[in-house]
């Protein structure tokens, strides 16, 4: 057994031999991780791995043998990541990490669901996405009792054109006392299918893991394979990925501002942003033919280049669309009726945001300075960064304001980067993945941290692949935001987070 007292440091977009990942008996491992989280650590990923390697990776509750637990922790202020693992254990339980750090609560529910291993003392142990028949196995919902209390159930099919999920509100009159969010309706089996991969469909599945974060997830996946091959994509491909990532952010943030405006019946901005969002999507299509960036990122590089003539067109169109966005945003901020609806609605306080481990704009709107592009730069972000956009307040207004700051900063980043391309090719043949190696890739998608972790087997195939969409961290933030709010404010709170259902369900 390894006698190390601390987790092993690892940089973003790199790999480490599996044997060099320090291990502890599970009880000590939980303590070591809790200690790291208590010292400015943030839990990026926590998952199980079946032992021995030949066993089924995700075999469900029945018949699962011994497992190990693996943790990836980020120390944002020190710009480092760290990994550790437990020794294999076949007892069906261990002391819950959630009791020591609430960041782990969904991760531990997931491990319990996938391997049947109970985190003892977990306060709300129920499935995350497992199905029972042809609906998710939601279990009992948290209930508030009392004569004035009523319950509101919404979904899975919602009123708008939106993904399915179930929301259960406990209300006293108009006031929401508690919101429980039950997902799993979108589970397509992405993680299960990755075992033994990569397979032929894997790239396409990564591109659709969360459809509006195609560049985020596909870049993370490509980075994993490059780290496992001990190389990186050509510089020009990294530049292309960085450009596409910001275009994705521009489109989604603009769409969100429009949707927020629409929900408070402020139609000028709603109408304008609906169109501008599409304009930004069309810039991604200019680069690769697909409005969502499909077919652009591939392991080893990119499939399409941004030639000088195309770059010129893109810059010219970008300026027009940014000016339109500025006009639409100015209307929004200038309207007192909008500010009155956004201010002090859906507050998530900084302590809460840190406690549950929020990421992305939702975290930055609660004053937390965390951004993978800045904290853990990989790829092109080692050479060029946009300033981190932070706003205090934690309310709907702050989440909208952070988006607008990021639109401006992404725009400026794109202006600078598109004008100064690196030379060279855009795609290299990739060497085979190293055997028995763990790789970690973080990408700051528009919703926040996209985290991919892969462990290869003796043949260099995926023994375990764990993808974590930022939504996995942030749905709890939406539930917290709704506490003591009017249920009629649910739509603007929901839009201010705009989380992915399929990214959560995978």
């Amino acid at each position: 057994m390894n006698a190390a007292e601390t987790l092993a440091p690892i940089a973003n977009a790199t790999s480490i031999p599996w044997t060099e990942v320090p291990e502890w008996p599970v009880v000590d491992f939980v303590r070591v991780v809790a200690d790291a989280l208590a010292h400015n650590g943030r839990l990026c990923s926590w998952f199980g791995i079946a032992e021995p390697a030949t066993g089924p990776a995700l075999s469900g509750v029945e018949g699962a043998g011994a497992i190990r637990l693996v943790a990836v922790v980020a120390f944002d202020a020190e710009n480092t990541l760290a990994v550790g693992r437990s020794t294999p254990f076949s007892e069906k339980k261990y002391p819950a990490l959630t009791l020591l750090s609430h960041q782990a609560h969904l991760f531990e529910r997931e491990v319990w669901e996938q391997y049947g291993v109970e985190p003892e003392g977990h306060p709300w142990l129920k499935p995350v996405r497992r199905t029972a028949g042809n609906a998710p196995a939601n279990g009992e919902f948290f209930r508030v009792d009392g004569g004035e209390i009523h319950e509101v159930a919404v979904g899975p099919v919602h009123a708008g054109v939106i993904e399915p999920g179930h929301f259960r509100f406990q209300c006293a009159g108009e006031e929401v006392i508690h919101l429980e969010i039950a997902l799993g309706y979108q589970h397509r089996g992405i993680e299960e299918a990755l075992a033994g991969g990569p397979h032929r469909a894997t790239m396409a599945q990564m591109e659709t893991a969360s459809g509006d974060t195609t560049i985020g997830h596909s870049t993370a996946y490509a980075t994993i394979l490059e780290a496992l091959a001990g190389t990186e994509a050509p510089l020009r491909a990294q530049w292309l990925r960085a450009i596409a990532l910001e275009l994705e952010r521009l489109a989604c943030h603009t769409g969100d501002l429009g949707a927020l405006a629409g929900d408070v019946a402020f139609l000028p901005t709603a109408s304008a942003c609906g169109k501008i969002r599409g304009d930004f999507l069309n810039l991604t299509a200019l680069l690769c033919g697909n409005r969502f960036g499909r077919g652009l990122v591939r392991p080893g590089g990119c499939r399409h280049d941004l030639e000088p003539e195309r770059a010129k067109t893109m810059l010219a169109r970008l300026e027009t669309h940014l000016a339109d966005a500025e006009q639409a945003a100015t209307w929004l901020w200038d309207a007192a009726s909008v500010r009155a609806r956004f201010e002090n609605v859906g507050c998530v306080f900084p302590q809460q945001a840190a406690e549950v481990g929020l990421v992305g704009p939702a975290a930055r709107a609660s004053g937390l300075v965390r951004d993978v592009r800045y904290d853990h730069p990989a790829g092109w972000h080692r050479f060029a960064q946009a300033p981190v956009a932070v706003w205090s307040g934690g309310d709907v207004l702050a989440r909208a304001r952070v988006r607008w700051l990021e639109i401006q900063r992404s725009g400026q980043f794109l202006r600078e980067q598109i004008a100064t391309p690196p030379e060279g090719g855009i795609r290299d043949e990739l060497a085979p993945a190293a055997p028995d190696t763990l790789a970690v890739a973080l990408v700051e998608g528009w919703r926040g941290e996209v985290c991919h972790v892969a462990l290869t087997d003796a043949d260099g195939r995926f023994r375990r692949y764990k993808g974590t969409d930022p939504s996995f961290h942030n749905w709890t933030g939406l539930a917290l935001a709704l506490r003591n709010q009017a249920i009629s404010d649910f739509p603007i709170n929901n839009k201010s987070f705009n989380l992915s259902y399929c990214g959560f369900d995978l």
Partner: protein
Amino acid sequence: MFVLDTITHRLKAGCATMTYPDGPAPALPDRHGGALRVDGAKCAEGCTACVSVCPTEAIAREAGKPVALDLGRCLFCGECVAACPSKAIIQTRDHRLAVRRREDLVLGAPGQEELRLGAALDAQMKKLLGRSLRLRQVSAGGCGACEADINVLGTIGWDLGRFGIQYVASPRHADGLLITGPVTKAMELALKKTWDAVPGPKIAIAVGACAISGGPFVGHAETCQGADSVVPIDLYIPGCPPHPITILDGLLRIIGRLEGKPAGDAPAGKVTAG
């Protein structure tokens, strides 16, 4: 001054809605490629170069038979086009892709090199619907991209409302369903209940590779391999996701609003819409 500001802006900006379908359709991005044309007769003897590069196994070639490409599974990545040594698979740049029958999406055999585009609903159904179509959208495992490009049709550039087409909040107010996603096992029951809640006569439209065939998730035990395993489908609109103009073409096609309209695309870059 917000009021003056918006009015001035509106006057300056003019009408943002495209003239299609009276005018030309907005051009597809130059790297999009549009519909595929598959001429199986051009395939070299024993060549399977396209079969092995397809991420969704949409292409099959049985010994002695022409190649068969299923556009219902196709993600339009273009790998097969690049891999084909005899130019048997080519991109037509045509945005029109919607068909009424599942088998009309399979290309390659003699006489089936191109899509057999869908016809309008029959006269009786058209009469019942009148000049409108109310659709309830159900995402059943959709990744959000098909949903986004369905949503975009409601924005000012496209303005779906001018055709009398509207997305409604309840299935009970709907003439039919617009389904996205491979239909996860977890959504099977919800989709069925939503379909049952739509008063008849009703139609169902499958948007995107997932809803038609399972798309990238074909073969996964967690999915139902497309919407027609749960609901009878009247219109298939392929793509990953289909471009908004492809979706709009499909919706207008099935209610007969494209009859007598020019079919051509605008020259590249001439017409844009978000």
